[in-house]
């Protein structure tokens, strides 16, 4: 266990180098897993590339959020589900989808008229940025707007966000002007919108939507908008985008001389739409079409923001973030639909097989596993029965008829200690070998019949996360609360969360200036951060004192003990986050009450 003092706040060189190496751009096209690069503006366009603050090529890999609203539940949740803009949702986009951007539509009229709406936008943007996500501000496509109103909105919005380097502006309502408008009109309209942004003082990249339905087919260099920092945004349709020739015509050709971002490409299975009708009806054919698109984007260095992060599109609900897939089939217009392309995007960004094994950090659900930390593999475990390792003995290397083999970046294979295996298509929990080398690795479930299923991961020194009461890395945090009278009198302890009939909740922690409150939080993935690790824990927006951190046992469990300051009194159930040497944890919930 490492006790933290004032002098122990540095970032270790090794950890920093590791972090940098993990953040290289994902060019795709091979089976090596990579984190998509975290948002690191300010950005500059250079030829057909977008360069971040360090001059590294940056590809946008994101999805669209719902149009921003003022509903409290969209951030705080409604008690059953997390909100669309909640930290739990945003961290899931970053960690579980391995994306690095969100597109956020804004209602321009509301923005102009309502300061609360503007404050909400600022809050969501800063929250997303804190979770390493670039935010592409866009206009709500459903709101009819005059060019003048639009320009005024962008001038104001750009002014408000000119100091946010991880914000882009998608100035034209998607999917773009109709093709019969013509390129000259398009050029003048886009030029006006770019100038509106620039007049607000913002220098970040501006996205310009092409014409519908042909994208940038026919655009010439002379018709491009005159600005150093523009990105061309295509919104291809499945009906007209089936082959590489289609892709080349609509945006591929342009991508050789300017940065291009593909937007949307949701098959709209929840609607009786032309897109759904054009989408291949066979899940296998549909999968191949989406995979061909993704491969093309990688090969041509095309950025993308695909589908939409909401039920019926990327996921089925905001509580468990079950990704949409095509496997169950669909009927166009049938709602609620479970059909969608999320599982394919996950597989692509994880260099995985949508029908294969995925290995994830047990506590934060991400692609990065910590040495000595807990991990879980999901998918074809195919154990014949569930088995939990017996307690009181060293964890076994074989459980049921399966073992887990971790082959590190040096090619050294080690069997992992196993905690639990489910049967069939299920999950298996294991401890990442502490001596595994850093970098890309393979996790393979190996069975007694000689078969195996493998997933690719990244191994790092730290990849922290909190245990939660529901064991799904979300919701009420697992921990022990200790309260002591300030005068050194009575003390009491209780659990920070409880579960009744399968429903877990954060237990209110009554804060007062008469008691000192510490919480020992159950965690994993931080034991190798070093005694000088920089551990930062925030409750709501308040950074709280970290009293100690380190291993809690020898099988992957760690602990972080924090003190809850009295200023959190009455804050209610709020978000709990942590970074260790800059690495993000999951977002859990803790309840700060009042005496």
């Amino acid at each position, binding site marked *: 266990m490492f006790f933290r003092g004032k002098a122990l706040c540095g970032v270790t060189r090794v950890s920093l180098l590791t972090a940098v190496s993990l953040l290289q751009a994902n060019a795709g096209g091979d089976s090596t897993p990579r984190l998509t690069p975290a948002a690191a503006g300010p950005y500059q366009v250079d030829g057909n590339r977008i360069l971040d603050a360090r001059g590294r090529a940056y590809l946008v890999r994101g999805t669209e959020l719902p149009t921003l609203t003022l509903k409290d539940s969209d951030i705080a949740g409604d008690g059953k589900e997390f909100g669309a803009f909640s930290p739990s949702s945003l961290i899931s986009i970053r960690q579980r989808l391995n994306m690095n951007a969100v597109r956020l539509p804004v209602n321009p009229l509301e923005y102009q008229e309502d300061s609360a709406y503007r404050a909400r936008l600022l809050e969501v943007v800063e929250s997303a940025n804190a979770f390493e996500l670039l935010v592409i501000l866009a206009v709500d496509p459903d709101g009819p707007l005059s060019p003048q109103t639009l320009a005024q909105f962008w001038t104001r919005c750009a002014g408000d966000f000119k100091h946010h380097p991880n914000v882009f502006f998608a100035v034209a309502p998607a999917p773009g002007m109709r093709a019969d408008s013509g390129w000259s009109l398009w050029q003048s309209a886009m030029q006006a919108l770019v100038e509106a942004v620039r007049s607000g003082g913002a220098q970040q990249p501006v996205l310009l939507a092409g014409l519908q339905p042909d994208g940038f087919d026919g655009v010439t260099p002379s018709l491009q908008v005159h600005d150093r920092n523009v990105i061309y945004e295509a919104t291809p349709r499945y009906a007209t985008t089936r082959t590489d020739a289609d892709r080349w015509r609509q945006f591929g050709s342009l991508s050789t001389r300017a940065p291009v971002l593909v937007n949307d490409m949701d098959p709209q299975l929840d609607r009786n739409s032309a897109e759904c009708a054009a989408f291949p009806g066979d899940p296998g054919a549909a999968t191949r079409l989406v995979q061909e698109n993704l491969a093309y984007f990688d090969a041509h260095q095309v950025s993308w923001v695909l589908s939409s992060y909401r039920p019926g599109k990327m996921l089925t609900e905001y509580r468990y973030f079950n990704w949409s897939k095509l496997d169950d089939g669909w009927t166009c217009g049938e709602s609620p639909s479970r059909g969608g392309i999320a599982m394919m995007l996950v597989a692509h960004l994880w260099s995985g097989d949508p029908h294969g094994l995925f290995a994830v950090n047990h506590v934060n659900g991400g692609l990065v596993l910590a040495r000595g930390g807990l991990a879980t593999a999901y998918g074809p475990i195919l154990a*014949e029965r569930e088995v939990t390792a017996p307690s009181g003995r060293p964890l076994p290397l074989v459980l049921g008829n399966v073992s887990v083999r971790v082959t590190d970046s040096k090619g050294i294979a080690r069997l992992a200690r196993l905690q639990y295996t489910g049967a*069939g*298509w*299920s999950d298996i929990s294991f401890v990442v070998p502490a001596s595994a080398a850093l970098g890309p690795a393979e996790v393979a479930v190996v069975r007694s019949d000689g078969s195996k299923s493998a997933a690719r991961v990244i191994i790092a020194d730290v990849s922290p996360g909190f245990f939660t009461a529901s064991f799904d890395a979300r919701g009420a945090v697992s921990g022990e609360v200790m309260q002591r009278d300030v005068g050194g009198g009575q003390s009491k302890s209780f659990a920070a969360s409880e579960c009744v009939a399968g429903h877990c909740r954060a237990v209110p922690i009554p804060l007062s200036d008469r008691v000192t409150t510490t919480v020992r939080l159950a965690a994993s993935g931080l034991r190798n951060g070093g005694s000088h690790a920089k551990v930062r824990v925030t409750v709501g927006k308040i950074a709280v004192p970290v009293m100690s951190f380190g291993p809690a046992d020898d099988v992957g469990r760690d602990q972080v003990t924090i003190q809850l300051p009295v200023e959190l009194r009455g804050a209610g159930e709020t978000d709990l986050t942590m970074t260790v040497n800059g690495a993000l944890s999951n977002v859990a919930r803790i309840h700060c009450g009042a005496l």
Partner: protein
Amino acid sequence: VRKAARIAWLAAVAWGAPPAYQLAVPKGFPKPRIPLDNPLTADKVRLGRYLFYDKRLSVNGTTSCATCHRQELAFTDGRAQALGATGQTHPRSSMCLVNVAYAGAFNWSNPAVHSLEEQALKPMFGTDPVELGVVRQDLLRLIRSDPVYRVLFPRAFAGEANPYRIVNVTKALASFERTILSGASPYDRFHIGGDADAIPDASRRGEILFFLDYGGPACFRCHGGFNFSDTVDYVAKPHRTAEFHNTGLYNVTGALSYPMPNLGLYEHTKNPADVGKFKAPTLRNIALTAPYMHDGSIATLGEAVDHYAAGGRTIAHGPWAGVGRDNPAKDSLVHGFPMTAQNRADLVAFLESLTDDGVVHDPRFADPWPSVRK
């Protein structure tokens, strides 16, 4: 017996042990349990194959083992209920003989038969119903007099003073049946062989459903393991397990919820909780073994999937009307599950990927008599 054993020992010493049969155990399969008193030899397997296909074993020369166990149908007969040599209908469907070497039970619901040798006596000599209707003396006369058998029996049971015995008939039949192994289906090539293209996308989706627990179909709970059956036996297994399940196929009115005479395990235990419990057969080559269930009352794989998705079969009219889902003895593993048309097709595609074309075309398992008659 002592004398016979001594003769056998002397023969083995004098001429060497009979050549053992090299059983081609599929990759990923365990070693099958072979009875100590009936080791596999090439000569016994060969003899067993001739016996298996010999219609003269039946009372009227019309039927052989192969009549109800046809190679092209993965050693089943395509009928809902088997037909005996005398035309009598068997109450149950012919069981698949593929991988029978691994069977933990040899009948649909009888836990008391412990070996293939023992089991072979039932179709030969059983009278209720008559299957082959073998007359003991006729059979002995045949194997003593037939020129083929006069060569094969002494070789298969070298050293025995009298190899022409019923017990040797069953040993030879059992030996042949143990060699009918199947583990080279497209799914095996995908799962064991690592050939990602061995099965279509639909089968891969179906595989997930098949193995999906926690509210999913969880078919593997009864049809799991290397042989897709929970009633298996092999060398390293600590003890033989014979599982029987009531799948909610019926729920007829009356004291016993299944139609007579197919009462399942109850027929042997007389425990009402065992009504309707039958063995979960291997799903290997299942696409070839329609119709399905112990009585062949389900015609297609799709309908079988429907049955399990519904958590039991509902029969609206007739003497067997009833809601099988509510059968009091139904196994809780048959819980039903939500299923789309796509899921159904994918599950069927997965089951079809378990078909091993090799075993149904393997000349080692084919009728040997045509070549003799030439």
